[in-house]
Protein backbone atom coordinates (compact mmCIF):
# COMPACT_ATOMS: atom_id res chain seq x y z
CA UNK A 1 0.00 0.00 0.00
CA UNK A 2 2.72 2.43 0.99
CA UNK A 3 4.55 1.70 -2.24
CA UNK A 4 1.59 2.88 -4.29
CA UNK A 5 1.51 6.15 -2.36
CA UNK A 6 5.26 6.47 -2.78
CA UNK A 7 4.98 5.99 -6.53
CA UNK A 8 2.23 8.56 -6.59
CA UNK A 9 4.39 11.01 -4.66
CA UNK A 10 7.37 10.42 -6.92
CA UNK A 11 5.23 10.92 -10.01
CA UNK A 12 3.63 14.09 -8.67
CA UNK A 13 7.04 15.51 -7.83
CA UNK A 14 8.33 14.51 -11.27
CA UNK A 15 5.39 16.02 -13.10
CA UNK A 16 5.83 19.27 -11.21
CA UNK A 17 9.60 19.34 -11.80
CA UNK A 18 8.93 18.94 -15.54
CA UNK A 19 6.87 22.11 -15.81
CA UNK A 20 8.37 24.34 -13.12
CA UNK A 21 10.89 25.93 -15.45
CA UNK A 22 8.07 27.18 -17.65
CA UNK A 23 6.69 29.33 -14.84
CA UNK A 24 7.93 32.92 -14.58
CA UNK A 25 7.42 35.82 -12.24
CA UNK A 26 5.77 38.90 -13.70
CA UNK A 27 6.56 42.10 -11.83
CA UNK A 28 5.66 45.71 -12.20
CA UNK A 29 6.57 48.73 -10.09
CA UNK A 30 3.25 48.98 -8.35
CA UNK A 31 2.04 45.68 -7.06
CA UNK A 32 3.34 42.32 -5.88
CA UNK A 33 4.59 39.74 -8.33
CA UNK A 34 2.17 37.55 -10.24
CA UNK A 35 2.99 34.45 -12.24
CA UNK A 36 3.26 33.84 -15.96
CA UNK A 37 3.43 30.81 -18.22
CA UNK A 38 5.91 30.51 -21.09
CA UNK A 39 3.85 29.86 -24.23
CA UNK A 40 6.50 30.01 -26.94
CA UNK A 41 10.25 29.26 -26.73
CA UNK A 42 11.02 32.62 -28.33
CA UNK A 43 9.80 34.63 -25.39
CA UNK A 44 5.99 34.73 -25.51
CA UNK A 45 4.57 34.72 -21.99
CA UNK A 46 0.89 34.37 -21.06
CA UNK A 47 -0.43 35.82 -17.85
CA UNK A 48 -3.61 37.40 -16.46
CA UNK A 49 -4.76 40.86 -17.47
CA UNK A 50 -5.01 41.68 -13.77
CA UNK A 51 -1.34 40.78 -13.33
CA UNK A 52 -0.13 42.85 -16.30
CA UNK A 53 -2.08 45.97 -15.51
CA UNK A 54 0.42 48.75 -15.92
CA UNK A 55 3.98 48.58 -17.23
CA UNK A 56 6.89 48.66 -17.37
CA UNK A 57 7.06 44.92 -16.69
CA UNK A 58 9.87 42.62 -15.70
CA UNK A 59 9.84 38.86 -16.18
CA UNK A 60 12.04 36.67 -13.99
CA UNK A 61 12.73 33.14 -15.25
CA UNK A 62 13.20 30.19 -12.92
CA UNK A 63 16.92 30.14 -13.83
CA UNK A 64 17.30 33.60 -12.31
CA UNK A 65 17.52 35.63 -15.51
CA UNK A 66 15.42 38.79 -15.53
CA UNK A 67 14.13 40.45 -18.71
CA UNK A 68 12.18 43.58 -19.37
CA UNK A 69 8.92 42.66 -21.08
CA UNK A 70 6.59 44.36 -23.58
CA UNK A 71 2.87 44.04 -23.24
CA UNK A 72 1.69 42.86 -26.66
CA UNK A 73 -1.97 42.05 -25.96
CA UNK A 74 -4.42 42.37 -23.12
CA UNK A 75 -8.05 41.26 -22.75
CA UNK A 76 -9.84 42.32 -19.57
CA UNK A 77 -12.91 40.25 -20.30
CA UNK A 78 -10.99 36.99 -20.56
CA UNK A 79 -8.51 38.24 -17.92
CA UNK A 80 -5.57 37.37 -20.20
CA UNK A 81 -2.47 39.23 -21.30
CA UNK A 82 0.53 38.38 -23.50
CA UNK A 83 4.05 39.64 -22.78
CA UNK A 84 7.17 39.32 -24.91
CA UNK A 85 10.78 39.08 -23.74
CA UNK A 86 13.98 38.98 -25.81
CA UNK A 87 14.93 35.38 -25.10
CA UNK A 88 15.08 32.08 -26.99
CA UNK A 89 14.91 28.35 -26.30
CA UNK A 90 12.69 28.85 -23.30
CA UNK A 91 10.98 25.73 -21.90
CA UNK A 92 7.26 25.58 -22.72
CA UNK A 93 4.41 23.34 -21.59
CA UNK A 94 2.60 21.37 -24.29
CA UNK A 95 -1.05 22.52 -24.46
CA UNK A 96 -3.46 19.76 -23.47
CA UNK A 97 -6.98 18.83 -24.49
CA UNK A 98 -9.42 20.61 -22.19
CA UNK A 99 -12.45 18.97 -23.78
CA UNK A 100 -11.19 15.55 -22.66
CA UNK A 101 -11.01 16.65 -19.01
CA UNK A 102 -13.69 15.42 -16.61
CA UNK A 103 -14.73 16.35 -13.09
CA UNK A 104 -12.70 14.22 -10.68
CA UNK A 105 -9.47 14.31 -12.66
CA UNK A 106 -6.31 15.43 -10.95
CA UNK A 107 -4.63 18.71 -11.87
CA UNK A 108 -2.00 20.89 -10.28
CA UNK A 109 -1.11 24.55 -10.27
CA UNK A 110 2.27 26.27 -10.00
CA UNK A 111 2.79 29.86 -9.04
CA UNK A 112 4.16 32.13 -6.36
CA UNK A 113 1.51 32.14 -3.61
CA UNK A 114 2.27 34.93 -1.14
CA UNK A 115 5.59 35.34 -2.99
CA UNK A 116 6.82 31.77 -2.47
CA UNK A 117 8.46 31.04 -5.81
CA UNK A 118 7.31 28.07 -7.89
CA UNK A 119 5.11 26.54 -5.23
CA UNK A 120 2.76 23.72 -6.23
CA UNK A 121 -0.76 22.85 -5.18
CA UNK A 122 -2.91 19.98 -6.41
CA UNK A 123 -6.54 18.96 -6.49
CA UNK A 124 -9.32 17.74 -8.73
CA UNK A 125 -11.56 19.38 -11.28
CA UNK A 126 -14.91 20.33 -9.77
CA UNK A 127 -16.56 21.36 -13.02
CA UNK A 128 -16.53 23.65 -16.03
CA UNK A 129 -18.51 26.27 -17.79
CA UNK A 130 -19.90 29.71 -17.70
CA UNK A 131 -22.75 29.26 -15.26
CA UNK A 132 -21.12 27.78 -12.18
CA UNK A 133 -22.38 29.10 -8.88
CA UNK A 134 -19.59 31.49 -7.93
CA UNK A 135 -18.79 32.38 -11.45
CA UNK A 136 -18.68 35.96 -12.71
CA UNK A 137 -21.47 36.43 -15.20
CA UNK A 138 -20.71 36.67 -18.88
CA UNK A 139 -17.45 34.74 -18.82
CA UNK A 140 -16.80 31.47 -20.56
CA UNK A 141 -14.32 28.66 -20.73
CA UNK A 142 -13.45 28.40 -17.09
CA UNK A 143 -12.21 25.42 -15.14
CA UNK A 144 -13.22 25.27 -11.48
CA UNK A 145 -10.72 23.36 -9.37
CA UNK A 146 -10.63 22.00 -5.82
CA UNK A 147 -7.22 23.41 -4.86
CA UNK A 148 -5.65 26.26 -2.93
CA UNK A 149 -4.87 29.29 -5.07
CA UNK A 150 -3.50 32.37 -3.33
CA UNK A 151 -2.39 35.83 -4.41
CA UNK A 152 0.70 35.21 -6.57
CA UNK A 153 -0.77 32.17 -8.33
CA UNK A 154 -2.46 34.31 -10.97
CA UNK A 155 -1.05 33.76 -14.45
CA UNK A 156 0.61 30.45 -13.59
CA UNK A 157 -0.15 27.15 -15.29
CA UNK A 158 -2.82 24.57 -14.48
CA UNK A 159 -1.39 21.23 -15.59
CA UNK A 160 -3.01 17.79 -15.99
CA UNK A 161 -1.51 14.41 -15.08
CA UNK A 162 0.06 14.08 -18.53
CA UNK A 163 2.03 17.24 -17.76
CA UNK A 164 0.09 19.27 -20.32
CA UNK A 165 -1.16 22.82 -19.94
CA UNK A 166 -4.94 22.95 -19.50
CA UNK A 167 -5.43 26.41 -18.06
CA UNK A 168 -4.07 29.64 -16.62
CA UNK A 169 -4.90 30.13 -12.95
CA UNK A 170 -6.88 33.27 -12.49
CA UNK A 171 -9.11 33.53 -9.50
CA UNK A 172 -9.71 32.44 -5.97
CA UNK A 173 -13.24 31.45 -5.16
CA UNK A 174 -13.27 30.85 -1.44
CA UNK A 175 -10.31 29.38 0.45
CA UNK A 176 -10.31 26.01 -1.29
CA UNK A 177 -11.58 26.65 -4.78
CA UNK A 178 -9.62 28.08 -7.70
CA UNK A 179 -10.71 29.13 -11.16
CA UNK A 180 -8.54 28.87 -14.26
CA UNK A 181 -9.01 30.21 -17.79
CA UNK A 182 -9.07 27.21 -20.11
CA UNK A 183 -6.16 26.77 -22.52
CA UNK A 184 -8.71 26.92 -25.35
CA UNK A 185 -9.57 30.47 -24.31
CA UNK A 186 -5.85 31.28 -24.23
CA UNK A 187 -5.43 29.97 -27.79
CA UNK A 188 -8.39 32.00 -28.98
CA UNK A 189 -7.09 35.12 -27.24
CA UNK A 190 -3.63 34.75 -28.81
CA UNK A 191 -5.05 33.98 -32.24
CA UNK A 192 -7.33 37.02 -32.17
CA UNK A 193 -4.99 39.52 -30.59
CA UNK A 194 -1.78 38.49 -32.35
CA UNK A 195 -3.31 38.21 -35.80
CA UNK A 196 -4.37 41.83 -35.42
CA UNK A 197 -0.74 42.76 -34.91
CA UNK A 198 1.74 42.61 -37.81
CA UNK A 199 3.72 39.37 -38.23
CA UNK A 200 1.72 37.56 -35.82
CA UNK A 201 1.86 34.14 -34.32
CA UNK A 202 5.38 34.22 -32.99
CA UNK A 203 6.90 36.49 -30.45
CA UNK A 204 10.12 36.80 -32.48
CA UNK A 205 8.51 39.47 -34.61
CA UNK A 206 7.87 41.72 -31.65
Amino acid sequence: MASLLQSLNAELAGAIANVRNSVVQVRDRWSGAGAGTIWHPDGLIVTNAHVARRGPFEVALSDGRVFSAHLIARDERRDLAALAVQAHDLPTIQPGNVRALQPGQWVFAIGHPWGIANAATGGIIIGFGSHLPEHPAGRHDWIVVDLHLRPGNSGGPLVDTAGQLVGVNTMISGPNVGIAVSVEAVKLFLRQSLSAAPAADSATAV
Partner: protein
Amino acid sequence: MSTVLESLSNELAAVVVAAGASIVRVEGRRRQAASGVIWSEDGIIITAHHVVERDENIGVGLPDGSRLPAQLVGRDPSTDLAVLRVGTNGLTPAKWAAGDTLRVGHLVLAAGRPEEQVQATLGVISALEGEWRTRAGGAIDAYVQTDVVMYPGFSGGPLVSAASEFAGINSSALLRGLSITIPAATIQRVAGALLAHGKITRGFLGVSAQPVRLPAAIAAQMAQETGLLLVAVEGDSPAERGGLLLGDTLLSVDDAPVRHMDDLLAVLGSDRIGRAVPVRVLRGGQVQTLQVTIGARA
Protein backbone atom coordinates in the same frame (compact mmCIF):
# COMPACT_ATOMS: atom_id res chain seq x y z
CA MET B 1 5.39 8.37 -17.72
CA SER B 2 3.11 9.14 -14.81
CA THR B 3 1.28 5.85 -14.65
CA VAL B 4 -0.02 5.78 -11.08
CA LEU B 5 -0.98 9.45 -11.17
CA GLU B 6 -2.80 9.17 -14.48
CA SER B 7 -4.56 6.00 -13.40
CA LEU B 8 -5.63 7.64 -10.15
CA SER B 9 -6.86 10.70 -12.00
CA ASN B 10 -8.84 8.64 -14.51
CA GLU B 11 -10.26 6.39 -11.82
CA LEU B 12 -11.45 9.41 -9.86
CA ALA B 13 -13.17 10.72 -12.99
CA ALA B 14 -14.73 7.27 -13.58
CA VAL B 15 -16.03 7.23 -9.99
CA VAL B 16 -17.65 10.63 -10.60
CA VAL B 17 -19.30 9.37 -13.79
CA ALA B 18 -20.58 6.20 -12.08
CA ALA B 19 -21.85 8.13 -9.05
CA GLY B 20 -23.46 10.76 -11.27
CA ALA B 21 -26.02 8.23 -12.51
CA SER B 22 -27.63 8.37 -9.04
CA ILE B 23 -27.23 12.10 -8.35
CA VAL B 24 -29.96 14.61 -9.16
CA ARG B 25 -30.43 18.37 -8.94
CA VAL B 26 -32.95 19.55 -6.36
CA GLU B 27 -34.68 22.88 -7.04
CA GLY B 28 -36.35 23.71 -3.76
CA ARG B 29 -35.10 27.17 -2.85
CA ARG B 30 -34.82 30.52 -4.50
CA ARG B 31 -31.05 30.75 -4.70
CA GLN B 32 -28.61 28.08 -5.88
CA ALA B 33 -30.17 24.66 -6.60
CA ALA B 34 -28.76 21.77 -4.57
CA SER B 35 -28.28 18.02 -4.96
CA GLY B 36 -30.08 14.80 -4.12
CA VAL B 37 -29.53 11.06 -4.29
CA ILE B 38 -31.74 8.50 -6.06
CA TRP B 39 -33.07 6.09 -3.43
CA SER B 40 -35.17 3.83 -5.61
CA GLU B 41 -35.68 3.02 -9.25
CA ASP B 42 -39.29 4.31 -9.05
CA GLY B 43 -38.56 7.91 -8.19
CA ILE B 44 -37.73 8.29 -4.48
CA ILE B 45 -35.05 10.97 -3.93
CA ILE B 46 -33.21 11.72 -0.68
CA THR B 47 -31.84 15.20 -0.11
CA ALA B 48 -30.93 17.61 2.68
CA HIS B 49 -33.85 19.18 4.54
CA HIS B 50 -32.27 22.64 4.59
CA VAL B 51 -32.06 22.91 0.79
CA VAL B 52 -35.80 22.27 0.37
CA GLU B 53 -37.07 25.62 1.60
CA ARG B 54 -40.56 25.25 0.16
CA ASP B 55 -43.07 22.40 0.37
CA GLU B 56 -44.45 22.82 -3.14
CA ASN B 57 -43.22 23.65 -6.61
CA ILE B 58 -40.11 21.50 -6.15
CA GLY B 59 -38.20 20.43 -9.25
CA VAL B 60 -35.75 17.56 -9.74
CA GLY B 61 -33.16 17.49 -12.54
CA LEU B 62 -32.36 13.91 -13.53
CA PRO B 63 -28.95 12.67 -14.77
CA ASP B 64 -30.34 12.38 -18.33
CA GLY B 65 -30.98 16.14 -18.34
CA SER B 66 -34.76 15.96 -17.97
CA ARG B 67 -36.55 17.93 -15.28
CA LEU B 68 -39.56 16.63 -13.38
CA PRO B 69 -41.83 18.10 -10.71
CA ALA B 70 -41.38 16.47 -7.29
CA GLN B 71 -43.60 15.99 -4.25
CA LEU B 72 -42.27 16.36 -0.73
CA VAL B 73 -42.86 13.00 1.00
CA GLY B 74 -41.55 14.25 4.33
CA ARG B 75 -38.73 15.95 6.12
CA ASP B 76 -36.77 15.55 9.33
CA PRO B 77 -35.11 18.82 10.35
CA SER B 78 -33.40 17.07 13.26
CA THR B 79 -31.22 14.97 10.93
CA ASP B 80 -31.39 17.46 8.01
CA LEU B 81 -32.95 14.90 5.66
CA ALA B 82 -35.88 15.18 3.29
CA VAL B 83 -37.54 12.66 0.97
CA LEU B 84 -38.99 13.61 -2.43
CA ARG B 85 -40.93 11.61 -5.01
CA VAL B 86 -40.88 12.09 -8.78
CA GLY B 87 -43.25 10.26 -11.10
CA THR B 88 -40.91 8.15 -13.15
CA ASN B 89 -39.33 4.70 -13.40
CA GLY B 90 -36.03 3.21 -14.44
CA LEU B 91 -33.79 5.44 -12.32
CA THR B 92 -30.41 4.16 -11.12
CA PRO B 93 -30.59 3.84 -7.31
CA ALA B 94 -27.50 4.63 -5.24
CA LYS B 95 -25.27 1.80 -4.09
CA TRP B 96 -24.74 2.39 -0.37
CA ALA B 97 -21.46 1.55 1.33
CA ALA B 98 -21.52 -0.60 4.47
CA GLY B 99 -20.62 1.64 7.42
CA ASP B 100 -17.64 -0.46 8.49
CA THR B 101 -15.85 -0.03 5.16
CA LEU B 102 -14.88 3.57 5.93
CA ARG B 103 -11.54 4.38 7.53
CA VAL B 104 -9.87 7.62 8.52
CA GLY B 105 -7.52 8.59 5.69
CA HIS B 106 -9.55 7.05 2.88
CA LEU B 107 -9.88 9.13 -0.27
CA VAL B 108 -13.49 10.22 -0.82
CA LEU B 109 -15.31 12.51 -3.24
CA ALA B 110 -18.15 14.88 -2.52
CA ALA B 111 -20.35 15.02 -5.58
CA GLY B 112 -23.31 17.14 -6.54
CA ARG B 113 -25.41 18.34 -9.44
CA PRO B 114 -26.22 21.99 -8.70
CA GLU B 115 -26.22 22.55 -12.48
CA GLU B 116 -26.75 20.18 -15.43
CA GLN B 117 -23.52 18.23 -15.03
CA VAL B 118 -22.21 16.34 -12.05
CA GLN B 119 -19.42 18.13 -10.13
CA ALA B 120 -16.97 16.81 -7.55
CA THR B 121 -14.42 17.70 -4.89
CA LEU B 122 -11.84 15.39 -3.31
CA GLY B 123 -10.72 14.83 0.24
CA VAL B 124 -10.02 12.29 2.93
CA ILE B 125 -12.08 11.00 5.82
CA SER B 126 -10.91 13.13 8.73
CA ALA B 127 -12.78 11.60 11.66
CA LEU B 128 -15.02 8.61 12.35
CA GLU B 129 -16.74 8.40 15.71
CA GLY B 130 -19.80 6.82 17.20
CA GLU B 131 -23.39 7.97 17.42
CA TRP B 132 -24.05 11.67 18.05
CA ARG B 133 -26.91 14.11 18.36
CA THR B 134 -27.43 17.15 16.20
CA ARG B 135 -28.29 20.45 17.86
CA ALA B 136 -31.90 19.83 16.90
CA GLY B 137 -31.84 16.49 18.72
CA GLY B 138 -31.58 14.16 15.73
CA ALA B 139 -29.80 10.85 16.22
CA ILE B 140 -26.98 10.30 13.70
CA ASP B 141 -25.61 6.74 13.68
CA ALA B 142 -21.97 7.71 13.19
CA TYR B 143 -19.91 10.88 13.15
CA VAL B 144 -18.32 11.14 9.70
CA GLN B 145 -16.20 14.23 9.09
CA THR B 146 -14.21 14.84 5.91
CA ASP B 147 -12.09 17.64 4.50
CA VAL B 148 -13.96 17.75 1.17
CA VAL B 149 -14.91 21.21 -0.03
CA MET B 150 -18.67 21.68 0.05
CA TYR B 151 -19.06 23.68 -3.16
CA PRO B 152 -22.31 25.72 -3.35
CA GLY B 153 -25.20 23.34 -4.06
CA PHE B 154 -23.38 20.21 -2.87
CA SER B 155 -25.63 19.73 0.18
CA GLY B 156 -27.89 16.71 -0.35
CA GLY B 157 -25.30 15.08 -2.60
CA PRO B 158 -23.36 11.95 -1.68
CA LEU B 159 -19.99 11.26 -0.16
CA VAL B 160 -18.61 8.76 -2.65
CA SER B 161 -16.07 6.06 -1.81
CA ALA B 162 -13.26 4.86 -4.08
CA ALA B 163 -15.55 1.92 -4.92
CA SER B 164 -18.20 4.36 -6.27
CA GLU B 165 -20.44 3.55 -3.30
CA PHE B 166 -22.32 6.20 -1.35
CA ALA B 167 -21.14 6.50 2.24
CA GLY B 168 -23.89 8.99 3.04
CA ILE B 169 -25.28 12.40 2.24
CA ASN B 170 -23.30 15.57 2.82
CA SER B 171 -24.73 18.50 4.72
CA SER B 172 -23.03 21.80 5.32
CA ALA B 173 -25.80 22.80 7.74
CA LEU B 174 -25.42 20.24 10.56
CA LEU B 175 -22.20 21.69 11.95
CA ARG B 176 -21.23 25.05 10.48
CA GLY B 177 -17.76 25.16 8.99
CA LEU B 178 -17.34 21.39 8.90
CA SER B 179 -18.07 18.92 6.11
CA ILE B 180 -20.29 16.35 7.82
CA THR B 181 -21.77 13.28 6.17
CA ILE B 182 -25.05 11.75 7.33
CA PRO B 183 -24.22 8.03 7.18
CA ALA B 184 -26.17 5.51 5.13
CA ALA B 185 -27.57 3.81 8.27
CA THR B 186 -29.23 7.04 9.40
CA ILE B 187 -30.60 7.68 5.92
CA GLN B 188 -32.05 4.18 5.81
CA ARG B 189 -33.77 4.66 9.16
CA VAL B 190 -35.04 8.20 8.57
CA ALA B 191 -36.08 7.62 4.96
CA GLY B 192 -37.90 4.44 6.02
CA ALA B 193 -39.84 6.35 8.68
CA LEU B 194 -40.61 9.28 6.36
CA LEU B 195 -41.83 6.95 3.62
CA ALA B 196 -44.00 5.05 6.11
CA HIS B 197 -45.39 7.96 8.16
CA GLY B 198 -44.38 11.16 6.35
CA LYS B 199 -42.73 12.39 9.54
CA ILE B 200 -40.39 11.42 12.34
CA THR B 201 -42.06 10.84 15.68
CA ARG B 202 -40.25 12.33 18.63
CA GLY B 203 -40.82 12.22 22.34
CA PHE B 204 -42.79 15.09 23.88
CA LEU B 205 -43.01 16.57 27.37
CA GLY B 206 -44.90 19.84 26.87
CA VAL B 207 -42.60 22.27 28.65
CA SER B 208 -40.63 25.40 27.87
CA ALA B 209 -37.36 25.63 29.71
CA GLN B 210 -34.16 27.57 30.02
CA PRO B 211 -30.82 26.56 31.49
CA VAL B 212 -30.01 27.91 34.96
CA ARG B 213 -27.02 27.53 37.26
CA LEU B 214 -27.68 25.15 40.19
CA PRO B 215 -26.99 26.03 43.84
CA ALA B 216 -23.51 24.82 44.83
CA ALA B 217 -24.74 22.04 47.14
CA ILE B 218 -27.12 20.62 44.53
CA ALA B 219 -24.47 20.95 41.81
CA ALA B 220 -22.09 18.89 43.93
CA GLN B 221 -24.77 16.32 44.80
CA MET B 222 -25.88 15.87 41.18
CA ALA B 223 -22.43 16.34 39.64
CA GLN B 224 -23.80 18.87 37.14
CA GLU B 225 -23.47 22.65 37.02
CA THR B 226 -26.76 23.53 35.36
CA GLY B 227 -30.35 22.34 35.02
CA LEU B 228 -33.41 23.44 33.05
CA LEU B 229 -35.83 25.85 34.73
CA LEU B 230 -39.39 25.19 33.55
CA VAL B 231 -40.85 28.51 32.42
CA ALA B 232 -44.07 26.99 31.03
CA VAL B 233 -45.91 23.68 31.41
CA GLU B 234 -48.63 23.00 28.83
CA GLY B 235 -52.06 22.00 30.08
CA ASP B 236 -52.90 18.29 29.74
CA SER B 237 -49.38 17.55 28.54
CA PRO B 238 -47.24 14.57 29.57
CA ALA B 239 -45.32 16.96 31.83
CA GLU B 240 -48.45 18.20 33.63
CA ARG B 241 -49.88 14.71 34.00
CA GLY B 242 -46.58 13.59 35.49
CA GLY B 243 -46.73 16.38 38.09
CA LEU B 244 -44.11 18.79 36.75
CA LEU B 245 -44.74 22.37 37.87
CA LEU B 246 -43.82 25.80 36.60
CA GLY B 247 -40.65 26.80 38.46
CA ASP B 248 -39.26 23.28 38.82
CA THR B 249 -35.69 22.87 37.67
CA LEU B 250 -35.25 19.73 35.59
CA LEU B 251 -32.12 17.79 36.62
CA SER B 252 -32.39 14.47 34.82
CA VAL B 253 -34.73 12.40 32.65
CA ASP B 254 -34.49 8.60 32.77
CA ASP B 255 -31.25 9.03 34.78
CA ALA B 256 -29.61 11.03 31.96
CA PRO B 257 -28.48 14.45 33.27
CA VAL B 258 -30.27 17.42 31.69
CA ARG B 259 -27.87 20.36 31.72
CA HIS B 260 -29.04 22.25 28.63
CA MET B 261 -31.66 21.99 25.89
CA ASP B 262 -29.55 19.62 23.77
CA ASP B 263 -29.59 17.08 26.62
CA LEU B 264 -33.36 17.29 26.85
CA LEU B 265 -33.83 16.89 23.09
CA ALA B 266 -31.45 13.94 23.15
CA VAL B 267 -33.52 12.01 25.71
CA LEU B 268 -36.76 12.66 23.83
CA GLY B 269 -36.07 10.16 21.04
CA SER B 270 -38.86 7.99 19.67
CA ASP B 271 -37.61 5.02 21.74
CA ARG B 272 -38.91 6.58 24.99
CA ILE B 273 -42.43 7.36 23.71
CA GLY B 274 -45.06 5.77 25.98
CA ARG B 275 -42.57 4.82 28.69
CA ALA B 276 -42.86 6.06 32.28
CA VAL B 277 -39.40 7.31 33.20
CA PRO B 278 -37.99 8.82 36.41
CA VAL B 279 -37.64 12.61 36.17
CA ARG B 280 -35.56 14.37 38.82
CA VAL B 281 -36.39 18.00 39.61
CA LEU B 282 -35.23 20.63 42.06
CA ARG B 283 -38.31 21.99 43.88
CA GLY B 284 -38.16 24.20 46.97
CA GLY B 285 -34.46 23.44 47.39
CA GLN B 286 -35.10 19.69 47.47
CA VAL B 287 -34.40 17.09 44.79
CA GLN B 288 -37.56 15.13 44.00
CA THR B 289 -38.18 12.25 41.63
CA LEU B 290 -41.40 12.04 39.59
CA GLN B 291 -42.61 9.45 37.11
CA VAL B 292 -43.45 10.99 33.75
CA THR B 293 -44.81 9.10 30.73
CA ILE B 294 -43.18 10.54 27.62
CA GLY B 295 -45.71 11.47 24.94
CA ALA B 296 -45.38 11.66 21.18
CA ARG B 297 -45.15 14.96 19.37
CA ALA B 298 -48.23 15.43 17.18
